[in-house]
């Protein structure tokens, strides 16, 4: 089976994630969409690695997971503190600063 299809899949996932970021209000969900995008990237890496027949891509994938995990830690901390302050996780409520 042609590995390129995995690339298409990756692109699709990436787009879905991006779209989610654009349309979803809940900060958590938005954040999950970002994670989805990262995973799409991982898929792409692995696929390319498979295509090129070297392991760099797979190694990168591991790094990405670590980074994503770190991001979760930080992100959740921030989002939670925001939620505790405002009792809402909607990114649209957080619009004090504008113009």
């Amino acid at each position, binding site marked *: 089976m042609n590995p390129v299809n995995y690339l298409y899949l990756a692109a699709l996932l990436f787009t879905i994630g991006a779209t989610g*970021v*654009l349309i979803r209000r809940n900060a958590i969900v938005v954040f999950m969409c970002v994670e989805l995008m990262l995973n799409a990237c991982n898929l792409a890496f692995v696929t390319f690695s498979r295509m090129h027949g070297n392991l760099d891509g797979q190694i990168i994938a591991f790094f990405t997971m670590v980074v994503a995990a770190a991001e979760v830690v930080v992100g959740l901390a921030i989002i939670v503190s925001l939620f505790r302050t405002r009792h809402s996780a909607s990114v649209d409520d957080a*619009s004090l600063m504008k113009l």
Partner: protein
Amino acid sequence: MENLIALLIAAPLLGAAVLLCGGRRLDAVGHWIGTLLAGLSFVFGALLFADMLGKAADHRTVTQHLFSWIPVSGFQADVTFRLDQLSMTFVLLITGVGSLIHLYSVGYMEHDERRRRFFGYLNLFLAAMLLLVLADNYLLLYVGWEGVGLASYLLIGFWQHKPSAATAAKKAFLVNRVGDMGLSIAIMLMFTTFGTFAFGPVFADVSGTGEGKLTAIALMLLLAACGKSAQVPLQSWLGDAMEGPTPVSALIHAATMVTAGVYLIVRSGAVFNAAPDAQLVVTVVGAVTLLFGAIVGCAKDDIKKALAGSTMSQIGYMVLAAGLGPIGYVFAIMHLVTHGFFKAGLFLGAGSVMHGMNDEVDMRKYGGLRKYMPVTFVTFGLGYLAIIGFPGLSGFFSKDKIIEAAFAKGGTEGWILGGAALLGAAITAYYMTRVMIMTFFGEKRWQPDEHGHEPHPHESPKSMTIPMIVLAFGSVFAGGLFSFGDRFLHWLEPVTGHQEGHPPVSAAVVTGATLVVLLVGAGIAYVQYGRRPVPVVAPRGSLLTRAARRDLLQDDFNHVVLVRGGEHLTRSLVYMDHTVVDGVVNGTAASVGGLSGRLRRLQNGYARSYAVSMFGGAAVLVALTLLMRAV
């Protein structure tokens, strides 16, 4: 000897400096210092005159080079003086009459607390006027030219607290400036044509130059002359200039400054001779002005204004003569000198009358003054006879010569000009007789002024009468002195050149005609004013009379066209500067601000819309990159 030339100017200049910077501590003696220095300059003039008489007729021109004034490559203006017969004539006239009038002013201005300043101005005037006539190039002449303008401005407006005086002064300066424009353009033309504007080289090169250029130069010079000598169309300022103290009117606005225009034309004779069209224009201007002035003079009840009109018309004669070229130059100058005497005398007389009548100027409030101020009456009377050209007196010789020359121009032009001159003579006789009768004859018509002061006419002090007497002598004898044996002619000929004019009819006829019209004019005046009482309040008068009272509506024209128009123009320009010029800039700023305000809205505080812009941006970025490769 020629080193005296500079002193000639230096003396009054020093006087002006001392008197104007000296401050109050000089108030006591200021007037005498001024008079002294004026006299001193006259003495220098006399010495130089004696020296000049010693020389042969055509070696009399002397020059004195002081220093290089404006040296710029190709443009060399020097401070050099040139004393020849022409300028000598003026030097004597200016310093002579000037000194007399200084003396006169000592008495006349006695009660003015700013007398020191007055003498300072007078001295300044003398210096400037002398510079004007002694300059050896047009640019230096220009300095004197504007210098006398300044002095005249200061003296007309001497009583600045009177708005009318201040306005008159400003008007005089502005009108003169228009003339000065002509002079400066003329100088520029000379520079581009001859590469210089010194008298000698210019006159030398005239021959090798196109007539068109010369005509242009001549016309520009004429414009200047019109301004300074109150010739139509720039005559409007002279009447108002009478706001100044009477000695000023006598010296500046009768004897000397106003004749500078004539000097300029005669001095530039070489240019005019080569530009006949320009000469024609000069004669026309002269003729028109001499009638204009005369007519205005007839209608005025203000004695000084009447005399001002007369001055205008007399200078018209001179300009006319000067326009006639070599046949007229000498007579123009001759009339200028004689006129200097009798018109100054007349003005001083008028001043003396006003002095005795609480500065009343309306002739309708005079009458029968001959009993009260005999000296004034006699001197004024002699001046009167001189100006109307009574046989044997100065005016007779000089004016008669001009009329002859006018006829001698030949052709229809000759007839027209001659006719105009004759008519002018008649009108002159008319209005002067009118002045004479209304002032000194008939029953007394003066009443108490608004303060209830009944004027007590009395003769003026010596310091005033002596100059009048001296000038009276001049008005009586100068003409004869000049004419017998054509002394004046031979004196000036080397400078101005001369050619005998040949009237179509014999000179005797012209002279006869002149006498006839003179009698007619005087007679009419006698009938109108001598035989029946003069109304204290001026009658409405004919349309012409009313127009003449308003200087033939010339001022109204200026007011409507220039003043009103100018005000509108400036006001609209100020508005435009605010709205348009500034508006464009402020508009740009405002529009940028507006754009900013609109772009600001994009920053709506919603993270997701920020994400959208990022996403869009990324899309555009990618698209652009691909596009770049595609093309």
